[in-house]
């Protein structure tokens, strides 16, 4: 993977190479192995390279033979050897061994139909001099990032927002609605970002800029058709797809390693990778000083099974506190959890150990219905069909057997789920997550609340659901919502690409091979969630690759300590500074008196629930984000935005 950036002018007034170099330098961490720029009277392209395939021949920006097309590209197209053969059979002649060149010839051959032919993770921009147009595309699930902004018809695009800001022509300013989405879904939903006037290309979309206008097209639509029965050869097909998805993702001219969480998904991926690799696999894990979060024993077992050379990054609360500002700088968004921080440290370890490509188990919980949220949905529906039943709600206690006695049992516990929305609401599955998250909004200052007026992120999401959403089953709807609200904008972004690429490490995600996704989406739901057993078909397949103890291990959610890093006898100086009333008043988003109450409870040890831990991390990270991007960086004038209702207070001079 790499980093890309570019500018396209509506009028032929040129693009300064020093500006392009500034943009490239801002994302140098994504591509420490090389860089290049191209500029003419209308378009400038910049690229920083992480060399993985064709180490000598893949430099970018890359032009076709006539120089009429130029591409900057971030990602990997895993089926490029097949596509190359097909293109060669159509008369295309290749000069390099890289997958980048396949994009150029593929665009010549298929035009905007190119992205549908790619199996991989990618974001790219192709400049077509003949039509004075820019073609942008992003992979189906948003594994790789691509941001853009339009200003007076000029297009700016880049792998990270900091490259757009480095142009000096795009300003950093808060988008209140983007922030309000973070405090609803954990992330702003594409195309929105927390930055005013800066958008992200939605996963599965491509766009064409021409004559100052940007037209966006969706080229990939997810679907959840449900057959009556599991195909008799389902396990064989799953085995083929798993081996193919992992095998394709081992394609590289550098060693490929793996991240091991200790759970089923990453263990299966690493076991298959190890079986296919000719050299000993390198694996990497995070371990925690706090035993509530630690999975070391399971990680060691999985590493032993994969016969890998295993390295561990042990994380303490002070480690999280130390790197959290860097985490926000790379994530470019406020966060509600500290969970990305250990992965930031893990990619540093991985890179220091000489590995720049790792496979991960990300995506399996979405594809095979692994999360508790899917079980909650089934049990809530079951209970609500007979609301008078006293027996049915006891199922909630079975869902969370480790939560202990007291309020997480009985009436209150069941009531929490059963009062979280009606089955007729399209967001039914996710309301038990969205509603408590929204509680952070109670900390908004009256002025910020006024800026948002009647903005309702839940209503907006309901209005933007795809046409066939209502035809899907409740679990199909839940899976879709999980993809668009959490996987793409948070797990693959803030916790995935951005933390790995902070240290120039590329993550590859076999479970998000679209063939595997489509296979799983078209299985009957009981093949994935059988009773309360999650990822059923994957667990039935897993003994082929894994010991029973790993294959049958119940899912453990990945978490990191949230409150402890920032409170206690010696809190980090930046936290003390940014949570002071004067800092909060300067930013203007949160009510200082309310935050003081939260800090009092955190410091006294009574803020033990998710709501308050999310509030603390959310408020602190927003303050860090605002300080890093809106107060320090930009000198350009803010961008106009039709839907925005801002007072000058939020604009940066």
């Amino acid at each position: 993977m790499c980093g890309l950036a570019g500018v396209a002018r509506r009028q032929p007034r040129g693009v300064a190479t020093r500006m392009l170099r500034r943009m490239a330098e801002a994302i140098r961490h994504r591509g420490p192995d090389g860089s290049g720029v191209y500029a003419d009277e209308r378009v400038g392209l910049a690229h920083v390279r992480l060399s993985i395939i064709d180490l000598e021949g893949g430099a970018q920006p890359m032009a076709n033979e006539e120089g009429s097309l130029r591409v900057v590209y971030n990602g990997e197209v895993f089926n490029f050897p097949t596509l190359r053969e097909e293109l060669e059979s159509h008369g295309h002649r290749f000069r390099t061994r890289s997958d980048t060149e396949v994009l150029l010839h593929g665009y010549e051959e298929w035009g905007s139909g190119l992205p549908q032919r790619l199996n991989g993770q990618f974001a790219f921009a192709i400049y077509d001099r003949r039509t004075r147009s820019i073609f942008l595309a992003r992979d189906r699930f948003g594994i790789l990032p691509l941001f853009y902004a339009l200003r007076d018809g000029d297009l700016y695009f880049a792998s990270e927002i900091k490259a757009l800001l480095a142009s000096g022509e795009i300003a950093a300013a808060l988008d209140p609605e983007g922030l309000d989405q973070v405090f609803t879904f954990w992330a702003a939903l594409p195309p929105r970002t927390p930055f005013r006037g800066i958008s992200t290309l939605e996963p599965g979309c491509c766009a064409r800029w021409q004559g100052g206008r940007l037209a966006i097209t969706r080229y990939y639509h997810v679907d959840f058709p449900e057959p009556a029965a599991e195909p008799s050869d389902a396990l064989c097909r799953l085995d083929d797809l798993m081996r193919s998805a992992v095998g394709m993702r081992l394609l590289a001219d550098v060693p490929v390693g793996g991240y091991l969480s200790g759970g089923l998904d990453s263990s299966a991926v690493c076991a298959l990778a190890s079986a296919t690799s000719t050299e000993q696999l390198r694996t990497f894990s995070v371990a925690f000083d706090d035993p509530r979060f630690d999975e070391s024993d399971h990680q060691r077992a999985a590493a032993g099974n994969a016969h890998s050379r295993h390295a561990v990054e042990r994380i303490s609360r002070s480690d999280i506190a130390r790197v959290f500002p860097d985490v926000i700088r790379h994530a470019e968004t406020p966060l509600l959890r500290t969970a990305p921080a250990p992965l930031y440290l893990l990619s540093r370890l991985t890179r220091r150990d000489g590995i720049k490509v790792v496979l991960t188990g990300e995506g399996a919980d979405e594809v095979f219905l692994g999360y508790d949220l899917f079980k909650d949905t089934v049990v809530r529906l079951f209970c609500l069909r007979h609301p008078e039943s006293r027996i049915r709600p006891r199922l909630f206690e079975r869902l969370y057997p480790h939560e202990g006695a007291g309020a997480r049992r009985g009436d209150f516990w069941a009531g929490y789920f059963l009062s979280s929305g009606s089955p007729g609401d399209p967001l039914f599955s996710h309301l038990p997550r969205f509603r408590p998250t929204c509680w952070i909004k109670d900390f908004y200052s009256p002025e910020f609340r006024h800026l948002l007026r009647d903005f309702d992120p839940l209503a907006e999401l309901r209005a933007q659901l795809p046409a066939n959403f209502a035809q899907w089953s409740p679990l199909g709807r839940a899976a879709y919502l999980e993809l668009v609200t959490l996987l793409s904008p948070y797990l693959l972004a803030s916790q995935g690409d951005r933390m790995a690429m902070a240290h120039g490490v590329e993550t590859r995600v076999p479970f998000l091979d679209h063939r595997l996704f489509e296979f799983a989406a078209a299985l009957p739901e009981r093949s994935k969630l059988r009773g309360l057993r999650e990822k059923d078909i994957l667990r039935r397949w897993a003994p082929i690759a894994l010991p029973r103890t790993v294959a049958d291990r119940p899912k453990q959610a990945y978490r990191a300590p949230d409150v402890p890093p920032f409170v206690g006898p010696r809190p980090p100086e930046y936290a003390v500074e940014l949570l002071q009333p004067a800092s909060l008043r300067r930013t203007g988003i949160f009510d200082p008196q309310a935050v003081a109450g939260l800090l009092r409870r955190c410091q006294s040890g009574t803020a033990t629930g998710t709501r308050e831990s999310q509030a603390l991390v959310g408020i602190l990270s927003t303050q860090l984000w605002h300080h890093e991007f809106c107060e320090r960086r930009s000198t350009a004038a803010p961008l106009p935005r039709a839907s925005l209702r801002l007072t000058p207070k939020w604009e940066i001079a």
Partner: protein
Amino acid sequence: MNEITPLPEMEIVDRTRSWVRENFLYMRTDWKLGGDDPMLGSGVIDSVGVIELVEFLQRTFGIDIADEEITETNLDSLNAVGRFVHQKCNARSGAERRPRQVA
């Protein structure tokens, strides 16, 4: 022997309201928490908050609350808490006034 006088129901409600305001509504000082307003359904208290509430009631009013007593009927509003705690206190003081059995 000192007679144990149960607290009036209203005092239980007032002390609980102060505690809820201080610990769960510190960020929403404008929130009007009425005696019959649901605390769980309205999001004032979440499931972890219920644990805190139970601990507060046990500590402040000297009662023991069993798992099966942690119900919406007993705890979902300030008035429900007042009735429930008042009954528990009454039951306790009644038990303590009862003459000891002599073997």
